[in-house]
């Protein structure tokens, strides 16, 4: 019960922190970078469903984010489709292409699956770069409109978009929370723990894995759609596999298979990258060893480590309470027994 309370308290505290953040930082640049971190956090949440909960590493995740972003970019700039319709179609498009990619790639197991998805990612990147007629190729798509206002709310400032993205992140978290704590979420985890056992428990493997994959890449698609409306410029590099690797790093730092881990990781690493910007490409010399140390000494990530400790303590408390109850019952019986005799 105390675990539940503290969870709720933490969630409220996090939302409040997100709300006041723009007012405590010196300028718009901090707001801009944070909003970008939230967008990547949404994509990483999706990746974590597949990687952390279902146990499959999809290296094409950035490609699906690119598919979402380009859906918005192409539809709004070239076809004049309103932003929010394009936004919805971005998720639908990523999910539909994910379904096709999923039913093919999920026939493969373990790292064969990952290698296959790496290829999917490269194919998507090539298509974006080479298909000038559709994607504007290496020139990229410029002048993507900001999200259109909803009622009296306008999204034409960085601050307004920051709040829009924060709200989307909160919604993404609520939906993910329901998914991973559902019975279907438990089926995903059973697959991660071992496919033969999951199947023996009546989990249809293919259908369940494809479902996880489709939801996962839909998150990437929506994140891409937000990205397009926020950055307002798209180039093929968004599909690069290095972007997928960044998201994996977010998840590892925050905690694989934890709800808030990818969000914590995305925020921390985005800021770490920003503060090491002066080192340019040499910053990887700092990042690499740090990541190795983390994987060695904190393999469950920040949130994973905290959660494991909390679960253990809660279990011990509950067991102790159960024992005390049992002892109390036993001694009560003991007192009664002589009376019967």
């Amino acid at each position, binding site marked *: 019960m105390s675990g539940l309370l503290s969870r709720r308290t933490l969630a409220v505290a996090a939302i409040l922190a997100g709300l006041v953040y723009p007012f405590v930082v010196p300028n718009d640049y901090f707001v801009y970078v944070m909003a970008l971190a939230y967008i990547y956090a949404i994509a990483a949440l999706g990746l974590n469903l597949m990687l952390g909960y279902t146990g499959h590493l999809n290296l094409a995740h950035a490609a699906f984010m690119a598919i979402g972003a380009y859906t918005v970019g192409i539809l709004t700039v070239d076809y004049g489709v309103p932003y929010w319709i394009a936004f919805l179609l971005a998720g639908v498009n990523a999910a539909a292409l994910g379904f096709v990619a999923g039913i093919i790639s999920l026939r493969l197991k373990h790292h064969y699956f990952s290698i296959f998805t790496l290829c999917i990612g490269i194919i998507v990147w090539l298509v974006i770069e080479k298909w000038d007629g559709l994607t504007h190729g290496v020139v990229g798509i410029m002048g993507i409109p900001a999200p259109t206002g909803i009622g009296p709310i306008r999204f034409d400032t960085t601050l307004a978009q920051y709040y829009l993205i924060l709200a989307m992140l909160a919604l993404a978290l609520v939906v993910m929370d329901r998914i991973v704590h559902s019975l279907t979420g438990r089926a995903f985890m059973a697959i991660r723990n071992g496919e033969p056992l999951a199947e023996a428990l009546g989990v249809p493997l293919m259908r369940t894995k494809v*479902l996880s994959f489709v939801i996962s890449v839909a998150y990437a698609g929506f994140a891409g759609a937000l990205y397009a409306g926020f950055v307002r410029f798209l180039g093929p590099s968004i599909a690069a596999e290095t972007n997928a690797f960044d998201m994996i790093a977010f998840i590892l730092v925050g905690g694989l298979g934890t709800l808030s881990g990818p969000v914590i990781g995305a925020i921390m690493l985005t800021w770490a990258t920003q503060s090491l910007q002066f080192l340019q490409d040499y910053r990887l010399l700092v990042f690499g060893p740090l990541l190795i140390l983390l994987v060695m000494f904190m393999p469950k990530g920040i949130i994973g480590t905290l959660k494991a400790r909390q679960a253990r303590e809660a279990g011990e408390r509950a067991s102790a309470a159960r024992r005390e109850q049992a002892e109390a019952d036993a001694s009560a019986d003991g007192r009664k027994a002589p009376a019967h005799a």
Partner: protein
Amino acid sequence: MLEVSGLTKRFGGLAAVKDVSTSFERGRITAVIGPNGAGKTTFFNLVAGAYRPTEGIVRLDGEDVTGMRPDRMAMLGLARSFQTTTLFEDESVLDNLIVGHRLRTRSTLLDAILNTARARADNRECRRKAEEALSFVGLDHAADRVVADISQEEKKRVAFALALATEPRIVLLDEPAGGVNPEETAGLARLIRKMAESGLTVGLIEHKMGMVMGLADKVVVLDHGEKIAEGTPGEVSRDPKVIEAYLGADFALAGAGHAAM
């Protein structure tokens, strides 16, 4: 009741299981024994649908279920435990068991996202079933412990509970007492007997002969993929072919010599 007839599985030129016919009776414990590499686990995999037989028929209560996928078999009431059960170490025992009853529920992911009454009812039902299964295997006291903190023997019991949460008619247990001490083995044997007495059909692969001989109603002996003997533990343990398979031809001859004297 589960019947198999003429069950054969070839991997390329190698027959891992060759023309095996037998049956598992309701409420009885049928043990499958044999030397390492005899094809016992392959046999279970064929029965449970994990492998498609090259030849032969599997019937569950008269229905032909040959080559049916494991998740469909689970729906039909066949549950199994594996030599090693990978559980979610950082979660409580009870939470680990909830997925076991998922196959008997109807709510979809959309129900879960919208938190509908059906999703909540199914969640409660799965939790109740998990508690019931945990109670059956005698682990009420460990419900809230994280799996990483419980003993090897308790993990074996959790694996049984997971199988029981699926509401099976038949359970196949692959080396349920592997890696636990003799005292704990006796405890697990009592639990397996209790499962049979509750009306379940129990199939068992086990290397611990003492346990098999004291527990099984029927023993099926496999060697090099073929059934070489079948009968009560007493019959099987006197069978020269079984002694030969286990202890080598010399010992069997020596044993026969002794018997003659």
